[in-house]
């Protein structure tokens, strides 16, 4: 029953229209970002200062770190709703280790190192669990990761008995507060992650396999690509990224509240990915786009706040931008 002829003429028509929308879909985020900067230079006081730059960058960092992992997951045609909860878990675990709640701390440097590695790894393991549900049982990613979206924050709260953990441990907090050469440490981490992911996507077998799995899973399997392993890997990476972002957040705050760390992060990250031009249907990954998408969303919010628009209204504008970006991609896809 394969009588549906390919509408090749329709494709041609799509290609012609694609020029306008294709251009916008490709460079829309950059254009929006430039427009925002120009607008702010003209109307927002004290915009062109290092401080403003740092404020915006530090705020956007955690979103970008999580969104890098999210981009890889979405590129395989999946999605990861659990990232916010995994941030809460790593954010809850790390202070328990370096403050000696779990076992007595001898050397603070060693304790911090163990705390960081262990909490990121634990988040990565939870990510692996997501990947296992998706690849082994073929559960739809949105449902599979909903499990830890719900349970993850609960686990974090149980770990801490729902208590707020506060601390002042500079040996740990450099990750959110240090400024080597005047650049916030987390900005450096973010930049390294973005560069590594962009490189891996274009230059490695792993990156190519991710795009192939998202682009055509059956064809990939028949071409010998280990589809299940790729899926396991991207969800694990997404978990690792979330774990790292959780540490950055608690370092900045000098405290960890399992109720709040990473709250709503999954949606911010997905929004950054979508605005950045990665297709939510998979097969494409724009890591730099994700970075630009996160910056755009952040800058819109900053612009509105700096010009006296209340935060609630800023959220509506943010939603509008996301809707517009996704609509633009739809046009491009015709």
């Amino acid at each position, binding site marked *: *029953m*394969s*009588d*549906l*002829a*390919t*509408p*090749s*003429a*329709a494709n041609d028509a799509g*290609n012609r229209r694609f020029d306008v929308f294709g251009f916008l879909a490709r460079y829309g985020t950059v254009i929006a970002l430039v427009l925002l900067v120009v607008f702010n230079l003209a109307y927002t006081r004290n915009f062109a200062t290092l401080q403003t730059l740092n404020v915006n960058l530090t705020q956007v960092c955690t979103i970008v770190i999580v969104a890098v992992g999210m981009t890889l997951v979405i590129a395989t045609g999946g999605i990861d709703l659990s990232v916010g909860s995994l941030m809460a878990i790593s954010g809850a675990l790390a202070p328990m280790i370096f403050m000696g709640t779990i076992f007595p701390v001898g050397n603070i440097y060693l304790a911090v190192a163990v705390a960081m590695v262990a909490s990121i790894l634990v988040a990565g393991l939870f990510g692996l669990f997501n990947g296992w549900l998706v690849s082994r049982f073929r559960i739809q990613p949105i449902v599979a990761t909903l499990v830890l979206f719900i349970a993850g924050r609960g686990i974090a709260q149980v770990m801490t008995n729902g208590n707020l953990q506060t601390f002042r441990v500079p040996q740990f907090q450099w990750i959110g507060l240090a400024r080597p050469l005047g650049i916030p440490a987390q900005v450096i981490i973010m930049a390294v992650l973005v560069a590594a992911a962009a490189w891996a996507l274009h*230059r*490695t*077998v*792993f990156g*190519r*396999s991710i*795009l*192939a799995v998202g*682009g*055509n899973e*059956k*064809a*990939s*399997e*028949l*071409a*010998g*690509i*280990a589809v299940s392993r790729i899926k396991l890997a991207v969800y694990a990476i997404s978990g690792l990224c979330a774990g790292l972002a959780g540490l950055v957040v608690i370092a900045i705050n000098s405290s960890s509240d399992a109720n709040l760390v990473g709250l709503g992060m999954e949606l911010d990250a997905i929004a950054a990915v979508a605005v950045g031009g990665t*297709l939510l249907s998979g*097969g*494409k990954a724009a890591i730099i786009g994700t970075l630009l998408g996160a910056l755009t969303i952040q800058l819109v919010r900053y612009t509105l706040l700096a010009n006296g628009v209340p935060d609630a209204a800023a959220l509506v504008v943010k939603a509008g931008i996301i809707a517009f970006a996704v609509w633009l991609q739809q046009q491009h896809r015709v």
Partner: protein
Amino acid sequence: MTAQPDQAALLLDMRDIQKRFAGIPALADASLQVLPGEIHALIGQNGAGKSTLIKVLTGYYRRDAGQVLFERKPFEVGSPHQAQVSGISTIYQEINLVPLRSVTENICLGREKRRRGLLDWSAMHAEAERLLSRFSIGIDVRRPLSDFNTATQQMVAIARAIGFSARLVIMDEPTSSLDEREVSVLFSVIRQLKADGVSVLFVSHKLDELYEVCDRVTIMRDGRTVRSAAMSDIGKLELVAAMLGRDVAAVEGHATAFGERDRSRIGDVLFTAQGLAAGQLVRDVSFDLRRGEIAGFAGLLGAGRTETARLVFGADRRSAGEMTMEGASYHPARAADAIAAGMGFCTEDRKAEGIVPEMTVAENITLALLPKISRNGILNEARQKEIVERFIRELDIKCSGPNQKVRELSGGNQQKVLLARWLAMNPKLLILDEPTRGIDVGAKAEIQRLIRKLADDGLGVLMISSELEEVMEGADRIFVLREGVRVAELEGQAADEEDVLAAMAHGGAAKEAA
């Protein structure tokens, strides 16, 4: 066309139906006449236009030309639902009911009974039971549909059709997911429908079934109705010949670009398969393949050709059978194992299982090659470029460059990209499933010449094709499959076309006793 029934008595009369998609004709000159209270078979190869014709009838597509009379009145409907209300119900291969709702809800969906504005459940349950009892089916109509097996669900779909007082029920491959016992129940239901004066349009690829249950048959090919006859007037061989377009006398000369074969180039045994089986579709297939040989799989749709190829390639799990590759026993658990053993597989469905449309020509060509053009997981761009450019040149792939998206290429060039993907692996055995389907004549000849050249260079080729001349002229040996069983092995080129047709139709190589 033969045996025109009396026009006044027709239940359905479709004439000169034309339908084009984006300029490409899917139906060129199709007609279909169904009598009241008859079981009418509609058959043809994939792409012959059966589905399109049905979809035109049920209002899913709008026809470009032609007329449709139903009960002697012009029949114009805009949707399958309207068609159903007007007396034509369709039961699809995949039952499109609502699995989690009750049997009653499924039967009464769209024509619920009401009393004082509320749903009258007891009346609806009674109605559902009444309809099902006509087929001697007594089930709890309050239970969700998904509680029942496929056959019962199909009965529910039929009962639903009857509930709409259908005068014509279209069944699109209704037996494909049923076992033998279920099929016989379905047939008794169909006969019951016939006795009640309801006509059935029966689409199936299983010839034996057609002879068992159908009164008349309409055969389609390339969007045209090529023949319609009483089942009793047409032999199986004739039927297959008409489907494949072989009703002309013997073919003169060569219809393909394969040309003469130098058989001295065929080497020692490369691959053997003994008693392969998996599920209902592959039941007992044995064959072997030599280096430099082209083996052809012939058979009708549903004969198990593609399914056998998937077993060989490890894409599906086999339930029985032994295989060897280069003398060593070979047990592929997944495609990667087959690739490691030196096999490649160009699938029948280029779009769904072959190309990665959003990727470039270069990325598609190197998809199976990634481990070989990388070190420590890092791609060697220069090596990729070299390989890709070589294959674009050698196979003459028409593209703007290695970085063009593969979805923008024509079907023939996409096929060449897939061939390049496997040839780049330097395989020993290449499985080609319908290698020239849906591509233009020029590209087709090019690909056929290429296949022959590859075999001359020592590649073992397993070729599946629904085009008889491709198998007849291309293959050195022909294995005929019928309903999952390898029924004949014939010498290629020297084989008698009628022998191949006979084996496809009823399993024996012997000539049909007319």
